[in-house]
């Protein structure tokens, strides 16, 4: 019996490990929501689109700009309101038709249309015009120094193909229409869609006619993408050799994967910072036990609360070292981030108690903390840790942890006074953070500002960022705004998330801070 069992087991073990060198079996928690490149502005959707379609400019795995369908780009001499982009020549779509300036105009217009999820990134563009077949000019409503950063997820579709298949309009889900482009593709990318069953399996194969054949490794000839929602199953699939590459490795399994022969875990800081927001605007708030006053309105209370949070303990215990304590709510890649501010958080319970007493809350108060439980890495556990830490300075926190679908509407509808939020910065520029999180909440800006903070001077400064072309002056303004955010303790920064990709040792790649692997950069041994 003994020998039989061992024999059977070894036999199977060897078959399980054997895998084709060129096929990459890839799993992550979620699937792309649609193949229409302008219908969703969301991680997994963009990641799949990046293999099939291409934007004018991409970010490589270090986050730096790289030429894709545009070979170079610069503001037009003598007219700061215009960007000139030279397009790559000799690029063809998967159906063989050529990529030209006409496609750029068409794609930008499509991405600016009402049902497009990408339109907010393009609001400054008033016109796109073709100079010739391979040169385009983007006209903006004022100088826009960071326009290229808004184009890195903006995919180029073929005008002829899209029109021939009546997919000019981005899908209008409310209108009950389905479109050809949400289940069919025709891109210029390094991989061609072979088959797709949403939520089950997507197969891509290398594009034989790809323009970058000689520039990139393109070692993966076939990609089999299967979403695996359950974290334990996803890790098991990697351990058993059923997949070669996974995203979203749960922190508790990192050691296990790393110590397994033939597997590695690669880690990099993610473009996402986690923090608490406090509703400091109103004179009184609903979710506390203080009547007629808003303890969060006092900057001393906000500072004290920040000082009560022991970020190192959260990093060690909750995150198992998979985070970097933060002192500002900008990820380190972002223009405007600086070391001094990011390391400014310190834990000092006694000083925090003194500040609370100063502010007249020596006896403490109680407040509800709203927290998601399925959005960020160990989100609920972070909040639980914070509850204990804040209790040390007399702040009794009632934790309300719930799924993201219920959590985020609270911020949206101003129903929370103390909440957790995470923020990624796709443009790699502080303006994006200020626009959404610092500017007074209004129609155009401040849509995620749940703090009630409203300061005309700061708003004015934020608005100048959009069109300031003198980069030094612009950076000085960014620094001024950060100083206000820090001095006012607008938010309580917790940490920067860390990304983990698990893979077999054969797979060669660096971790992209956007969590979007671009397989043309992958090598395979």
């Amino acid at each position, binding site marked *: 019996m003994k020998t039989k*069992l061992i024999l059977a087991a070894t036999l*199977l073990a060897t078959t*399980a490990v054997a895998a084709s060198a060129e096929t990459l079996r890839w799993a992550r928690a979620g699937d792309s929501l649609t193949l229409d490149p302008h219908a969703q502005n969301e991680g997994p959707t963009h990641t799949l689109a990046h293999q099939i379609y291409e934007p004018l400019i991409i970010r490589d795995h270090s986050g730096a700009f790289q030429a894709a369908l545009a070979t170079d780009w610069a503001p037009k001499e003598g007219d700061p309101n215009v960007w000139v982009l030279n397009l790559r020549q000799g690029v063809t779509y998967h159906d063989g038709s050529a990529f030209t300036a006409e496609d750029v105009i068409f794609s930008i217009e499509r991405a600016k249309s009402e049902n497009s*999820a990408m339109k907010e990134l393009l609001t400054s563009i008033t016109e796109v015009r073709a100079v010739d077949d391979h040169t385009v000019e983007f006209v903006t409503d004022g100088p826009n120094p960071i326009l290229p950063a808004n184009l890195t997820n903006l995919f180029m579709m073929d005008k002829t193909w899209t029109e021939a298949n009546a997919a000019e309009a981005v899908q209008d889900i409310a209108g009950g229409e389905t479109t050809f482009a949400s289940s069919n593709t025709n891109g210029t990318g390094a991989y061609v869609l072979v088959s797709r069953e*949403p939520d089950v399996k997507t197969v891509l194969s290398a594009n034989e006619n790809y323009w970058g054949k000689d520039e990139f490794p393109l070692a993966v000839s076939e990609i089999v993408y299967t979403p695996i929602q359950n974290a334990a*199953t996803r890790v098991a699939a990697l351990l058993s050799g059923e997949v070669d590459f996974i995203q979203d490795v749960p922190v508790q399994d990192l050691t296990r994967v790393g110590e397994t022969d033939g597997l590695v875990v690669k880690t990099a800081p993610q473009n996402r910072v986690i923090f608490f927001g406090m509703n400091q605007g109103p004179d009184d708030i609903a979710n506390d036990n203080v009547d007629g006053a808003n303890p969060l309105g006092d900057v001393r209370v906000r500072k004290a609360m920040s000082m009560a949070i022991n970020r190192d303990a959260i990093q060690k215990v909750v995150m198992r070292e998979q985070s970097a304590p933060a002192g500002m709510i900008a990820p380190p890649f972002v223009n405007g981030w600086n070391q001094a501010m990011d390391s400014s958080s310190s834990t000092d319970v006694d000083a925090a108690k003194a500040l609370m007493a100063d502010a007249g809350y020596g006896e403490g108060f109680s407040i509800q903390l709203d927290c998601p439980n399925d959005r960020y890495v160990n989100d609920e556990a972070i909040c639980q840790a914070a509850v204990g830490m804040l209790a040390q300075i007399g702040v009794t926190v009632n934790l309300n942890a719930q799924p993201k679908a219920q959590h985020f*509407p609270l911020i*949206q509808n101003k129903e929370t006074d103390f909440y957790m939020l995470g923020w990624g910065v796709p443009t790699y520029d502080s303006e994006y953070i200020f626009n959404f999180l610092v500017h007074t909440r209004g*129609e155009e800006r401040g*849509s995620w500002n749940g703090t009630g903070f409203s300061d005309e001077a700061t708003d004015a400064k934020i608005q100048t960022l959009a069109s300031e072309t003198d980069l030094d002056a612009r950076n000085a303004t960014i620094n001024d705004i950060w100083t206000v955010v820090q001095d006012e303790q607008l938010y309580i920064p917790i940490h920067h998330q860390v990304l983990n990709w698990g893979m077999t040792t054969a797979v060669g790649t660096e971790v992209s801070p956007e969590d979007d692997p671009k397989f043309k950069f992958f090598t395979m041994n």
Partner: protein
Amino acid sequence: MIGPPLSLKPHMDAAFGGTTDMFGYIMRRVAQSALVLLVVGFVAFAMFRFVGDPIDNMLGQERTLEDIERLRAQLGLDDSFLVQYYRFLEQAVQGNFGLSYRQGREVSEILLERLPATLELAFVSGLLALFGGIVLGIFTAIRKRGVSSSIIMSVSLIGVSLPTFLIGVLLIYLFSVGVDLPFAIPMLWFETEAWSSFGLVWIENTSLGLPSFGRGDVVEIGGWTTGFLTESGLKALILPAITLGLYQMTLIMRLVRTEMLEVLRMDYIRFARARGIRSRVINFRHALKNTLVPVITITGLQLGSIIAFAIITETVFQWPGVGLLFINAIQFVDIPVMAAYLMMISVMFVGINLIVDMLYFAIDPRLRVDRGGSN
């Protein structure tokens, strides 16, 4: 002499004399079923408000307040749930379940695409539960005082009490990933019911190479995808089917055992033994036959719940069925998919109950005659 199947619906015996009564009865049941469906829909739509807001998921973080209001208005999310429910019903009776908020595809198309996976899994789990349950049930009944029976009975308690999620993950780690396990296995001889020796087996890798996720390769036949025709499809079924069927199996096992013990005490079994008929014939030909009727009834009723409660198993094994679809729909607040799924499941339950009721109506008198004859 009356067994459970006869006493299940005693009121019907009196109520149905002729075909007119039967027609009236069926019409009444159909009307009741329709009412049940309406109530399920009502409760579902009343609950959707508490699941969350789909807008954030649909628009992404850069959305403006204007976008949010526009989409809310277009989707009619600001209307009261009664209005939303009425709109759903109005469309549903025309066979239109709308578009999934998450995938942007026809809900009916998605459901039809996902249903075969769930039905095949439920079918295999059901078979497994039925045969495993019957075999183990008979075994533990015949050897009711044996050590092996006690072990099986104790292990079955674990099967009932461990959560499905844990069983699934455990099976994956044992048979897909593989672990090194020292096993002290008591070498037990079933014939003598005695411990003969202990053997230490060191299993270097428990993996059987079974897939931990997905359905394997499927073959499409006229819109129905099946995993029965490929090796990887069959392999992929094993672990999820065990996970899903384990609870039902223990249930059936215990039912068979109790029934069997009951039957084995009957006079006709004693007389059979007295006549010197071989125990195999007594156990399987005489006792088992009389045990199976309630088992089949229960299994039929349980099939519905296997389909409905495949959700957890499907999530653990990334099984692309309707259960996984429903979980995704809840997370995304994909109201059209949630509504259609709940309606589909309730139609199924109501349908099964209706069929069972009608079967009783048809079978009842015959059953009585059969029983009377054999006893």
